[in-house]
């Protein structure tokens, strides 16, 4: 009885202090404050290094791996693809600001014409289609390589995703991503936040769990367990599969909204992708 009482007090307390939508800026502040309090001895910029912010042994191995980066080939291939003109003579550079270089910090963005979130990968395929080319498959290969190259040219830039306060549709997309992050899914009943907020820094098997802030900075990422470089949405697919939920398609509305929320939670972090993870 007492325990029930305490639980309810806690629950109602949480509800009372939590309005329906606190707004992106407040969300970001609350998220950053939470991790800073949780890990007072970790420099905030370290959160961009995932589990390597917490595990010295793993960090040493990772730094060794980064001496001969396994994603380097993908970046070189991506550069070659990026610079190869389409059949109509145009190229990727014609589709983007600043010729497509050093721009990843502005993705994803909310597109008012389609009322949808546009990710960098989606924009790459839109560019192809506008120029009469077939879209590329999202999960692996050429598109991931192009994205890796574009990320590489954006290294060190500060993530600056916008959710305009006066745009209810953009806010709705952000809120949908936020709800996705906090909703339990799959037979195993985990939300993203179950692991990355509730038990962050503790280890599942041998791997410490990374923080929400700084989580997207290093994509596309080379995963040692996969032996290839992959997009953020492929990682979403893996997370959902691991909790035994039916994953969504890459670039589905669900994942685009999730990327919107999650990248906003890394606003202020420097891009450090592509990177490697075990």
């Amino acid at each position: 009885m007492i325990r029930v009482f305490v639980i309810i007090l806690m629950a109602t307390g949480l509800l009372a202090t939590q309005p329906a939508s606190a707004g992106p800026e407040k969300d970001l502040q609350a998220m950053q404050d939470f991790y800073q309090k949780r890990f007072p001895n970790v420099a905030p910029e370290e959160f961009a290094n995932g589990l390597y912010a917490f595990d010295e042994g793993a960090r040493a191995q990772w730094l060794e791996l980064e001496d001969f980066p396994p994603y380097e080939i993908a970046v070189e291939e991506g550069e070659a693809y990026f610079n190869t003109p389409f059949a109509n003579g145009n190229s990727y550079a014609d589709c983007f600001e600043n010729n497509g270089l050093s721009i990843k910090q502005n993705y994803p963005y909310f597109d008012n014409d389609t009322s949808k979130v546009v990710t960098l990968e989606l924009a790459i395929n839109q560019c192809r289609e506008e120029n009469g080319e077939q879209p590329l498959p999202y999960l692996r290969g050429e598109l991931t390589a192009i994205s890796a190259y574009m990320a590489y040219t954006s290294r060190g830039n500060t993530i600056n995703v916008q959710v305009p306060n006066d745009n209810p549709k953009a806010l709705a997309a952000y809120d949908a991503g936020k709800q996705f992050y906090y909703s339990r899914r799959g037979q195993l009943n985990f939300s993203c936040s179950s692991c990355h907020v509730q038990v962050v820094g503790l280890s599942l098997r041998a791997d410490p769990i990374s923080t929400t802030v700084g989580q997207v900075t290093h994509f596309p990422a080379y995963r040692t367990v996969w032996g290839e470089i992959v997009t953020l949405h492929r990682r979403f697919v893996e997370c959902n599969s691991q909790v035994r939920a039916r994953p969504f398609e890459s670039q589905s509305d669900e994942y685009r909204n999730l990327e919107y929320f999650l990248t906003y939670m890394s606003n202020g972090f420097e891009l450090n992708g592509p990177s490697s993870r075990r």
Partner: protein
Amino acid sequence: MNWTYLILLMLLVGGCGQSAEREYELTPSNSAPLSVITDELTPSASYEEAHAAAVMAIGVAANKGHAWSTSDSLLKQAQAAAVDGNEDRAIQLADQARVQGELAAQQADTEENVWQEKVL
């Protein structure tokens, strides 16, 4: 000590306790399971019936964005068993897929109400 004050306080605590109890009972995790235990399900009359019910239940969960991969694979196994002519097994698997579809939809409804409690 003012006795009126003390009695009021007790009533207040008691009242909170009461509402706390009710709220606790209302939490979906504590509500009665949707179906009885899978192992003890009354099997559907035919594979066709079991399959149709499973597809519908999984579809409801999927429309809420909460389908489970496990119910998908149970349904595939059921189809394979049916192709092999093992109707009893096919019915059993399809019924299990249906139960999981129902549980997944229940999860979606629950989360729709409680996800904000976890927001930082």
